């Protein structure tokens, strides 16, 4: 049997929880430094989990604290107690929740975002899908990046597909679709030109192979760009969603947090419908479908999880 070479990407700072500033201490601002005590941290953490499905374990306290400080500051509130009251009871609480989710997922768009998930995709999921598709005599597999933003995610998925082309070339076509609600961002994605920040996690050998340096920008090669097709889709529009049937792998990271429980349930059940049997769904690296769907089987890979449709 063909043995795929294992991809191991360099982790930035320690372990599975490779967040950009996870280990940073809260920085003082103004005259007095805000301190998030353990009890308030747990209350806010649980509230966020309840509202968004995104979980911050104790070791991510500083990450959350850093982001919350910015929110408290911009609303000119007096500390975390007031802020916690604000997001639950203020007239503008809905708007603030969106701001909060933006703050906690900021910097989430870059190539090779969350290496363990990309490793699980490249080393386990993709080879499994390819093997099964070949065994079933299928001619095509489909990978869908649902909320592809400026294209970093679908292009990352495409790079890895290209890297293991020995496994599928000649037998299958691999279709990669990136979808987003914003047509502006889709146009940007099609251009495939990125700044230093977006490409910071790309392993050097891939950087050399697939990017060209044009002044301040890094331009992705057509070889990879040609794998990806971009379409406009609003995830809560069930008619538009129905166009996406027959996916084998779906990435839908850090999107569901913005929906309330009812919409989330609807979207996830549609994602389930759109997956082929044996297909996988990836959500954000600290997101959860608990209480949203029981249809999938949760599968653990090395330092990440995914949901399988059986």
């Amino acid at each position: 049997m063909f043995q795929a070479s294992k991809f191991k990407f360099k982790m930035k700072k320690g372990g599975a929880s490779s967040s950009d500033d996870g280990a940073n201490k809260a920085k003082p601002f103004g005259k007095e430094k805000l301190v998030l005590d353990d009890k308030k941290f747990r209350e806010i953490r649980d509230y966020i989990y309840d509202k968004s499905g995104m979980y911050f374990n104790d070791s991510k306290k500083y990450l959350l604290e850093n982001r919350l400080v910015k929110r408290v500051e911009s609303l000119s509130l007096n500390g975390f107690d007031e802020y916690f009251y604000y997001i639950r009871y203020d007239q503008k609480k809905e708007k603030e929740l969106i701001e909060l989710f933006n703050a906690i997922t900021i910097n989430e768009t870059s190539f090779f975002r969350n290496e363990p998930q990309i490793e699980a995709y490249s080393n386990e999921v993709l080879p499994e899908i390819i093997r099964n598709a070949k065994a079933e005599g299928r001619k095509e597999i489909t990978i869908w990046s649902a909320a592809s933003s400026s294209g970093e995610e679908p292009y990352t998925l495409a790079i890895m597909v290209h890297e293991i082309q020995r496994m599928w070339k000649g037998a299958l076509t691999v279709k990669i679709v990136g979808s987003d609600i914003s047509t502006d961002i889709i146009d940007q994605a099609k251009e495939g030109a990125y700044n230093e920040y977006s490409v910071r996690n790309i392993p050097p050998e891939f950087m050399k192979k697939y990017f060209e340096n044009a002044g301040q920008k890094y331009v992705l090669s057509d070889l990879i760009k040609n794998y990806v097709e971009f379409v406009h889709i609003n995830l809560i529009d069930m008619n538009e969603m129905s166009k996406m049937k027959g996916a084998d792998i779906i990435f839908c990271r850090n999107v569901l947090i913005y929906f309330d429980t009812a919409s989330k349930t609807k979207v996830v059940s549609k994602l389930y419908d759109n997956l082929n049997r044996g297909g996988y769904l990836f959500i954000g690296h600290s997101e959860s479908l608990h209480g949203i769907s029981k249809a999938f089987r949760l599968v653990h890979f090395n330092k990440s999880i995914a949901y399988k449709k059986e």
Partner: protein
Amino acid sequence: MISLRSLVESKIPEIQNLATLPAIATEIMSLTESDRSSMKEISKIIEKDMTIASKILKISNSPLYGYQRKIDTIQKALVLLGIKEVYNIVVGISVYSTFVNLKNNSDFDRDAFWEHSSGCGRIAKVFAEGLGLKFDGSEFLSGLLHDMGKLILDQYFQREFSQILHKMKEDDISFFEAESELFDINHAEVGALLLERWNVPENVIYAVRYHHSPELAKNYREMTCIIHIANELDKIWGDVELNKPHSFSLTENTGWKILKESYPSLENFDIEKFTYELTQEITKAKEIITINKNG
């Protein structure tokens, strides 16, 4: 099949003299088990052992625990980290230091071994907490000791141990599968034979003996299942390199199925949340082993 069992059995008394659970661990355990222990008593015991005491302070002050003020006394550590956490660290350090000087078969990565053992213990702890089950710390001890048999084989039966490692690589199978094919005893049983002679709770012996086959445990089945699951979870989430599983699914696991029979409400267990909790335990386990090693 070669009979290794009788050889192991005859060697156990001798092994017992060389490797035994450190006094401080037994002492601490007996204190926390009986509810009358005060923080003062516990810190007194720990402070008697300078090496362990200084390591605890070092670990408590590591960024992992995130305390901004310096923790400079064992009492403070007990208050901030909690008795259970300090107890686990003491047991971990003392077991580690007992075995750290044993001879090493060159193919066997001891650092990885201890990271996995300590990771397994910590996962067992958060798992039991998540399920609302109380084992007074013996779930941590079981996790820590679950692969003790491998150390014994590596130390006293090197030829057989090498044969197992060789077969693992040759046939691309797990340690447990390889030893089960080669010999009439496995590392879980070897570990349990030694632990029977130690002063550890009976449930620890069961959990160690049946950690690969929880369905065979006649008693203490719940804890055995927890160790079985924690073992698999640490293999997939930790940095174990040798014979790493490709994937793991809790709901397909024998231990999980047994637990679900007794606790149907596990249907609603938040696996994701538990998973995100266990990642920090694995990081802690690794950090503690590093601090331990570097003194």
